[in-house]
């Protein structure tokens, strides 16, 4: 590849990463607004602040590669290629949602783009991701599966069970722990003894710690590991340092008792993945500030339009209530 072509190529990649991070942030800002204005049923968990993790990783994957997601799953969903319209429809329980409104925020899945779904059971998708990797190995598809989960989820025994099997069977799966310092209202130190990377290494799994606010660093590492997975060198474990800007869920507004305002301000002002990457793009003269603002604005408009569409969209027919309990089986 010529240098110019390579630069062009990289520029496209950079742009996509920037765009995808901004799209996640825009999606979450709107989702939060929907909740605060009582237009969204139930509650939901904001991904804002963690964008570089989902985007850095998913941009290293193909659409056929799989991911499993969590209760904090909008970011993964957007990053893996989902559209705003179907996502907002799902969050509002509308028929045009990815799951016809039956799943909602905590179960949003986008099978067409390889997103096997959010999961409301902490750690609940660890087996699923590992099984997806077993399929890839057995069928020789060359697909990689990334299993996203939080620091809190490392307390679930299931993880150790599936790591053991993934290691024994050399499955193409990457366990990606988004360590945002908290599980609900508890600091990670209080619920995690020892070292997370050592836990994976004890099973013979090569492990890495990376700055989850640095989209390029995440993307580079994820790209390398995905390639190694395809060569049969998996599984891998990745601990990504990151931070959630909002409360544990949208309703968790008063959080002084467990988390200092200063800490929040620090992360937001010094380590924001979008701001910092934007600055870098400008510094490197890849983009101008105006170009970035134009992108931001376009995405904001897209999100707004999608929200409006979703608010007006129709609910599933009540007759759908007992559809999809069982899949049809060809006779």
């Amino acid at each position, binding site marked *: 590849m010529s240098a110019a072509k390579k630069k062009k190529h990289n520029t496209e990649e950079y742009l996509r990463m920037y765009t995808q991070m901004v799209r996640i942030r825009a999606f979450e800002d709107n989702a939060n607004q929907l909740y605060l204005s009582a237009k969204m049923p139930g509650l939901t968990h904001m991904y804002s602040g963690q964008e570089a993790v989902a985007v850095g990783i998913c941009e290293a994957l193909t659409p056929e590669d799989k991911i499993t997601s969590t209760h904090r799953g909008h970011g993964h969903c957007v990053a893996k290629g989902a559209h705003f319209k179907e996502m907002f429809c799902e969050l509002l329980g509308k028929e045009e949602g990815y799951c016809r409104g039956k799943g909602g925020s905590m179960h949003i899945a986008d099978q067409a783009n390889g997103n096997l779904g959010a*999961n409301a059971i902490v750690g609940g998708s660890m087996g699923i991701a590992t099984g997806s990797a077993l399929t890839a190995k057995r069928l020789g598809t060359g697909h990689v599966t990334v299993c996203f989960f939080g620091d809190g989820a490392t307390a679930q025994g299931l993880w150790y069970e599936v790591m053991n099997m993934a290691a024994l069977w050399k499955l193409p799966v990457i366990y990606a722990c988004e360590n945002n310092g908290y599980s609900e209202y508890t600091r990670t130190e209080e619920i995690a003894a020892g070292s997370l990377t050592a836990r994976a290494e004890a099973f013979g799994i090569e492990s890495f710690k990376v700055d989850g606010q640095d989209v390029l660093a995440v993307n580079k590492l994820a790209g390398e590991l995905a390639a190694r997975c395809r060569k049969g060198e998996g599984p891998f474990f990745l601990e990504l340092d990151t931070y959630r800007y909002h409360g544990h869920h949208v309703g968790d507004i008063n959080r002084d008792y467990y988390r200092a305002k200063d800490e929040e301000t620090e992360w937001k002002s010094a380590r924001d993945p979008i701001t910092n990457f934007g600055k870098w793009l400008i510094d490197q003269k890849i983009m101008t500030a105006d170009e970035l603002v134009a992108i931001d604005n376009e995405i904001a408009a897209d999100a707004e339009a999608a929200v409006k569409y979703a608010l007006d969209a129709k609910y599933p027919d009540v007759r759908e209530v007992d559809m999809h309990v069982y899949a049809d089986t060809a006779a």
Partner: protein
Amino acid sequence: MTREITLSRAVNEAIAEEMRRDPSIILLGEDVAEAGTPFKVLSGLVEEFGTDRIIDTPISEPGFMGIAVGAAMTGLRPIVDLMFGDFLYLVMDQLCNQAAKTHYMSGGKLNVPLVLRTNMGATRRSAAQHSQSLQALVAHIPGLKVAMPSSAYEAKGLMKTAIRDNNPVVIFEDKLMYNDKAPVPEEEYLIPFGQAHIKREGRDVTLVATSSMVQVAEAAADTLSREGISAEIIDPRTIVPLDEETILRSVRKTSRAIVIDEGHQSYGVTAEIAARISEKAFYHLDAPVIRMGAMDVPVPFSPALEDITVPNAAGVADNARKICRGELIHAA
């Protein structure tokens, strides 16, 4: 007049009172200490009892359930806080293979005095993994007792009894009722297990209802009474042990019964209660016992769908009218 407090407050009081009385009681679960649980039911307890007795755990349901079993076998009286009833699946082995069977398997030598407090209830837009009402699963396992408080009053009295019981007890609180108020005496009281409560007396039809379905039954009974149909409401309060006698006595009087529970209908709580009524009050029944459980579908997220999956007052009233009028519900 007795003061009114919320169900949430009632649970909190029950636990605090018992913990003051008995230093061997501890409580453990996720975010139970400073956070006082996501539902804020336990707020204030850690301030009074400290982190030695109100213990925040990692997100390890099987693990802390197992720890509670071992603690219970050796001299503590643990209360396990399971944030959502849907997580019961995760603790089933420790609860059903270990806690429930230890006393029996040891020939009566080892006891497992523990309380598993958890919740149930749909229509909160929490979708399929945070909305289940799984009381039937644990009720099926010998060695466990199962309580289903229907108001703040029951929540307090049953919790205190549960804590003093020498067996594993599972308590299901309806998460939609935490803010519902009811009169609760200042003085101490306990509600014995296996004693149903006749919530309302009536002549024409018996409504056996658990947990929040008692409210549903009451709303239906109000409607019915305006139409001249007198419904008796029985709240079993514990489904294990089940106060069969009170239920049967009522049905022998009214000759008609509707059983209402928020768990899935098939192979659920309504089946057991209906089967017992049909068997043991057979010659008194003027009509088939009607069962009203939740639909046999995972709980859908969409508000347009979720509400129709659970029994409601209009449906209960409708069924009551039909059997009282002698209409055949099924071409039986």
